[in-house]
């Protein structure tokens, strides 16, 4: 009976730790549309769950004095991002000295493609007359700002803002932090 109790305790305890360190928990997570950020992870007051997740994944979080990273694995309608589809990320971005938009696979690696193009910086991206931009994520070449997905099934988009007030206490919603939308515009049937 004692053995069963310890087995149960070990299973529940380590299972919960593995779950939270792998998937993360929503403590101190800022969600704006499909974009998620943990600005607190770049400060001294990082919570224990974020620390466990960082230690497990092996990443180095962006320090808040450097920038803030938003990740999206779904489009604005809640559909998982599919590398076989055409996905358009467009609109405006909050105030920052510059930003970068990068594709990663679920393990955080760059997405392989023959062009060796893994992302755009705000200085590379071609904009419309009103200053807004649109980047098309697709397996095949598209006109304008095209990011190749290499046709992988699932990917994550990282939108990182550098030298920015974003991530502070006034980062709460679309109104104070205008994030671009993510739309799946077509999938091969």
């Amino acid at each position: 009976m004692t053995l069963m109790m310890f087995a149960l305790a070990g299973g529940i305890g380590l299972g919960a730790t593995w779950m939270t360190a792998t998937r993360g928990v929503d403590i101190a997570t800022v969600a704006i549309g499909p974009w998620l950020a943990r600005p607190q992870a770049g400060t001294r007051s990082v919570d224990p769950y974020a620390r466990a997740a960082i230690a497990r994944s092996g990443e180095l979080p962006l320090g808040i004095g450097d920038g803030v990273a938003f990740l999206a694995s779904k489009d604005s309608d809640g559909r998982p991002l599919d590398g076989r589809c055409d996905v358009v990320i467009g609109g405006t971005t909050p105030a920052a000295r510059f930003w970068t938009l990068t594709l990663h696979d679920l393990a955080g690696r760059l997405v392989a493609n023959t062009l060796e193009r893994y992302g755009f910086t705000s200085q590379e991206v071609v904009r419309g007359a009103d200053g807004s931009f649109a980047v098309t994520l697709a397996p095949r070449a598209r006109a304008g700002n095209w990011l190749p997905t290499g046709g992988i099934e699932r990917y994550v988009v990282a939108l990182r803002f550098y030298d920015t007030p974003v991530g502070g206490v006034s980062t709460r919603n679309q109104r104070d932090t205008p994030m671009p939308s993510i739309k799946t515009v077509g999938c091969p049937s």
Partner: protein
Amino acid sequence: MMRTLAVIVAGIVLGGIVHLVSVLALPRIATQDAYSRLAPLAAVNAMTQLDPATPETTLMPFMDPAFAVAVCRYDLGAGPLKLTVPVSQAYTSVSFYTAEEIAYYAINDRSAGRKTIELDLMTEAQHEDLPKDEEVTAADRLIIDSPSPTGLIVVKALAAEPGLMAQAKATLAAATCRVQSATDAAKRK
């Protein structure tokens, strides 16, 4: 029946404790965290440039490919550290992490406000040992207190487009991190 229930309840409670302890212990025992990944590559108290991330070789997950990156793995046991980073034309930042990846400080070229970012890194004890009159001269020298005796300094220079990567790397090649010598201390008096 009652006994089985008691065992289950005790197992769940103990499981909760196991969970909390393991979450808190994870940053300390992780072997694939960023510090452990960089330790074999980066010499102690010297600047090492990292290879750019590619889909095949990713040192750490979710690295931004728009940056040239150099790290200094520090050990303040030999005394305070002196860090000098020339500022590139685009954007340069310096981020400080403890050996358990707490991003305790980050600064960029604009907030440094100079052509060269110059910092002294020391433990709180070493900071307290500084002669008091040096605090006055310290006004134009930035002193950073490291919460731990070991950690990482990550220096990043932006390549706003792939063609500018060589330039960003050249900027980082001139960055230095070394233990302060006696002459440095004398010069400041």
